[in-house]
């Protein structure tokens, strides 16, 4: 019997290639999209879950309130680790962890490398086994270093690196005590390539920061003993910091809590002192899109299958007459849709495979199909089977319900009920498509809006390098040479790159300031000289900092307009600003420029003279030279005067561009997927048009015999569909408005939603629908009425 079903399915597929193509194409495209999104979601959900100890791993978070506002953050004081270990028997082990970037050198090889400084228990806490060397003791050696396999390859090639020496930051020699596998791409340590024992911190920066209960410099990871109750333990440990500082006059009120590894990736957004949401929002968002697309594709399938019901009705009748039960017919039609689903599924996986590299590029991941994993095949199989059953369910029950006497004797007549499930399906398809398109347009508008915002400085042709130890000594020579050789028009040292906030401070006082002004936060930057000339920021009042011409400029200050405003300074130039014992004087005011998020208003900013710390050297490249030539010559100068470090540079505009990455990715994904939705929805509409024309063949025939012109008939047939798309729009528009309004709330600097977006999208949807439908309508209208009437 199954062979018979299969035969029928296969032959009816080929008997009507147009329908088969639309059926398979729609379903395959929908499934391919769903597969790609599913890969993305699986990757997100798998983050930080591959450690052998995952279910017992926690990160300690700190909680406190300032000004009545609750805050939560993931850094903790240095002494907390030993307190946790000694106070609570539930804690099996705990380690401090601090990210670190160091220059690693072996012979001529120099690599700026990302890694971390951590306690000796790290490898055990995260269940990391070594490839060579002893994982248990690797970090107990104070002059040891643990490196990953790929770093070992980069430095030592294929030779065994164990026991060899690496020089760190041109200062400290460390012996490789273990080589560990690379952290997988779904681990938060993916970019960590070396681990230094905690003694390195003490040697490089001293013990000051590590003993304070108020300086939150470290991430603390805790490994609990098996089967611990998290809630109970959280209650127990929350006041650990207070109890250890109770002897001092001012005990630290900060509380702590444990955050499980399975939530690190998905729930990392802190809001009102709680870790809610974060990446999980994106997971839901993508999940919804995947379900939408798959649903649209299935709806499509239903429409296409029922549209063909006229052709299948006779078969149903005959099968029933010769003894087929309704159940056997349901199975037959479900079997057909499952067969189609498997064909579509095979195409979908092929499509997904082809587009995976581009998708990876777009979302910045390295997703792959795990063919070697049996559960992959099982999931793929069930996915296809379920899609087939879902898509086939409605047609199966619809088709199998035909009464044989009706379809065999009087020919097949489709009902024209007021409530027609197929119309409902088309409305929901178009509603989803219109919703996605409106969202896409608004996301794009918002991104463009923020991108076109005037930065207040010239981000092009602005290069920066990290100020390393050696560069600190040779900075002035290099600066002179860069300008003398016409490579750069101007050079300045700063605390952070100009488009990156790395420091903020509070606690200042000035003439007329109140006690509460001490809580006013300022973005902090520094410069030696030529800040304005290099950055292109506009000077509003006074002059630039210039330590080379004004000896007292060591404590000079530039303020931005926003700072002047919040401080209430009437005559900012010459104003004295105090930071505890330090006195600074304002020499200039600059126009507001965007250092932080392009979506937020500019914050108050202070730029301090050279008494502050410097971290970067910025160069305004000479625009008259070709960039490549410029870079070559600049590199030569750095090689000469800064030979111990590799010449690694960044362009400010490229770094600034990264701030849009999230929105751009989302915008791109939204446009791709809404494009697919409208494509599939149009296939569905096409089917419904075909279906309706079939039901109205007799009517059309009679109208034509009575003299109705082609255009009138075509309009008559198209009108109904446009109504459906209209209804879809009415449903989708308010939802889109609500969703996008919510989304825009995330941005301070944002567009307002405009009515014409809705109008344009709505009209385009109607236009697309019209083109799709008119094809069928015109075909029906020009058909010879004799044919359609004769069959009666």
């Amino acid at each position, binding site marked *: 019997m199954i062979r*018979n079903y299969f035969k029928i399915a296969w032959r009816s597929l080929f008997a009507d290639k147009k329908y088969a193509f639309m059926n398979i194409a729609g379903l395959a495209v929908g499934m391919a999209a769903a597969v790609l999104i599913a890969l993305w979601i699986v990757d997100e959900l798998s983050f930080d879950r591959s450690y052998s100890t995952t279910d017992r791993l926690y990160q300690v978070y700190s909680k406190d309130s300032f000004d009545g506002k609750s805050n939560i953050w993931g850094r903790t004081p240095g002494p907390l680790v030993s307190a946790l270990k000694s106070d609570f028997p539930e804690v099996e082990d705990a380690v401090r962890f601090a990210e670190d970037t160091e220059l690693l050198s072996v012979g001529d090889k120099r690599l700026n490398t990302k890694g971390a400084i951590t306690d000796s228990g790290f490898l055990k806490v995260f269940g990391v086994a070594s490839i060579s060397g002893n994982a248990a003791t690797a970090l107990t050696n104070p002059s040891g270093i643990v490196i990953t396999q790929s770093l070992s390859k980069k430095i030592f090639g294929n030779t065994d690196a164990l026991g060899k020496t690496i020089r760190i930051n041109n200062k400290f020699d460390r012996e490789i005590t273990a080589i560990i596998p690379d952290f997988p791409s779904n681990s938060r340590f993916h970019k960590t390539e070396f681990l230094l024992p905690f003694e390195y911190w003490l040697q490089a920066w001293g013990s000051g920061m590590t003993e304070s209960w108020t300086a939150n410099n470290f991430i603390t990871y805790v490994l609990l003993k098996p089967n611990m109750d998290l809630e109970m333990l959280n209650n127990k440990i929350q006041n650990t910091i207070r109890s250890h500082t109770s002897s001092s006059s001012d005990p630290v009120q900060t509380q702590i809590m444990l955050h499980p590894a399975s939530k690190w990736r998905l729930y990392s957004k802190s809001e009102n002192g709680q870790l809610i949401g974060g990446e999980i929002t994106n997971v839901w968002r993508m999940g919804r899109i995947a379900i939408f697309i798959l649903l649209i594709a299935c709806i499509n399938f239903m429409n296409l299958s029922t549209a063909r019901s006229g052709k299948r009705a*006779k078969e149903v009748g005959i099968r029933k007459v010769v003894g087929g039960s309704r159940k056997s017919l349901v199975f037959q039609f479900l079997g057909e849709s499952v067969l189609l689903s498997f064909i579509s599924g095979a195409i979908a996986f092929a499509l997904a495979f082809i587009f995976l590299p581009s998708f990876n590029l777009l979302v910045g991941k390295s997703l792959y199909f795990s063919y070697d994993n049996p559960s992959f095949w099982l999931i793929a199989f069930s996915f296809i089977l379920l899609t087939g059953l879902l898509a086939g369910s409605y047609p199966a029950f619809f088709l199998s319900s035909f009464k044989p*006497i009706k379809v*065999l004797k009087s020919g097949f007549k489709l009902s024209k009920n007021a409530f027609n499930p197929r119309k409902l399906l088309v409305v929901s398809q178009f509603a989803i498509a219109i919703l996605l398109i409106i969202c896409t347009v608004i996301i794009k508008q918002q991104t463009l809006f923020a991108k076109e915002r005037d930065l207040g400085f010239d981000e092009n042709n602005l290069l920066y390098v990290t100020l390393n130890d050696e560069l600190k000594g040779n900075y002035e020579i290099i600066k002179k040479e860069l300008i003398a050789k016409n490579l750069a028009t101007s050079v300045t040292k700063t605390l952070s790159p100009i488009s990156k906030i790395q420091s903020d401070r509070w606690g200042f006082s000035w003439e007329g300031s109140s006690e509460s002004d001490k809580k006013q936060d300022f973005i902090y930057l520094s410069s030696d000289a030529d800040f304005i000339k290099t950055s292109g920021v506009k000077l509003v009042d006074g002059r630039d900092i210039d330590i080379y011409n004004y000896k007292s400029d060591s404590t000079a200050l530039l303020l931005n307009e926003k700072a002047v405003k919040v401080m209430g300074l009437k005559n900012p130039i010459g104003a004295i600003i105090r930071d505890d014992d330090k006195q600074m004087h304002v020499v200039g005011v600059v126009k507001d420029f965007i250092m932080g998020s392009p979506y937020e208003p500019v914050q108050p900013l202070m730029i301090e003279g050279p008494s502050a710390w410097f971290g970067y050297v910025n160069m305004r490249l000479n625009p008259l030279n070709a960039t490549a030539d410029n870079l070559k010559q600049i590199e030569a100068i750095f090689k000469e005067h800064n030979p111990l470090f590799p010449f690694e540079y960044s362009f400010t505009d490229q770094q600034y561009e990264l701030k849009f990455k999230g929105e751009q990715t989302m915008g791109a994904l939204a446009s791709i997927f809404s494009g697919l939705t409208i494509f599939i929805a149009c296939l569905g509409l096409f089917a419904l048009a075909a279906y309706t024309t079939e039901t109205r063949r007799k009517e059309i025939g009679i109208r034509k015999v009575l003299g109705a012109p082609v255009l009138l008939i075509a309009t008559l047939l198209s009108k109904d569909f446009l109504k459906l798309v209209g209804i879809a729009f009415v449903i989708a528009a308010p939802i889109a408005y609500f969703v996008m309004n919510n989304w825009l709330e995330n941005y301070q600097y944002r567009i307002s939603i405009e009515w014409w977006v809705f109008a344009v999208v709505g009209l385009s949807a109607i236009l697309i629908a019209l083109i799709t439908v008119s094809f069928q309508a015109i075909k029906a209208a020009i058909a010879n009425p004799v044919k359609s009437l004769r069959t009666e």
Partner: protein
Amino acid sequence: MITITDLEKYYATEEVRTIALNKLSFKVKEGEFVAVMGPSGCGKSTLLNILGLLDDPDGGSFVFNGIEVAGFNERKRADLRKHNIGFVFQSFNLIDELTVFENVELPLIYTGVKPAERKVRVDAVLEKMQIMHRRKHFPQQLSGGQQQRVAVARAVVNNPKLILADEPTGNLDSSNGNEVMDLLTELNEAGTTIIMVTHSEHDAKYSHRIIRMLDGQKVTENVLAEFKSV
């Protein structure tokens, strides 16, 4: 074999109720060949649908092989139908996507006959209908007469006790029509009961008895040939 008593059937639309069968009663003996005649709309087809267990009467009694089947649900009717009744239609009603062989095989599949036996039985019946050489063809590749022979083959492959024929020659020219009527007569002579709805006096003459209907009622009955119970 068949006894119907006061059989009633109505068709109702929103405003009009049409009586298709109005207290119709008659009997058909096993092995008989009965023709039902009457103008369009007299209820012939409705009668055939009810006799074929495709439709349920609204009133009266229908005893098939000693069992009262009026009021059977669809599943029970389907079960009885597939073992006992074969159908021949005016428009042949073959499945276009299946070959001659597969079309004839269909009833056997639904009654759960094993593939090997199916092949033997289908081949035998195709041989008998002289359509064996076309067994791998699709319906569209056959002439009307050939298609109707396939349909008859399908109707008899299960060895039904009763064949219901709904204007079996209506779509055929006279020579093909006669061929089909000869086939039916042969089947009847071999013991199959046949009830045939027809407009053609010529075809009706092949039967033992003609029941003439008008407005859902039996008007007359002509006995053409003496029928002796088997």
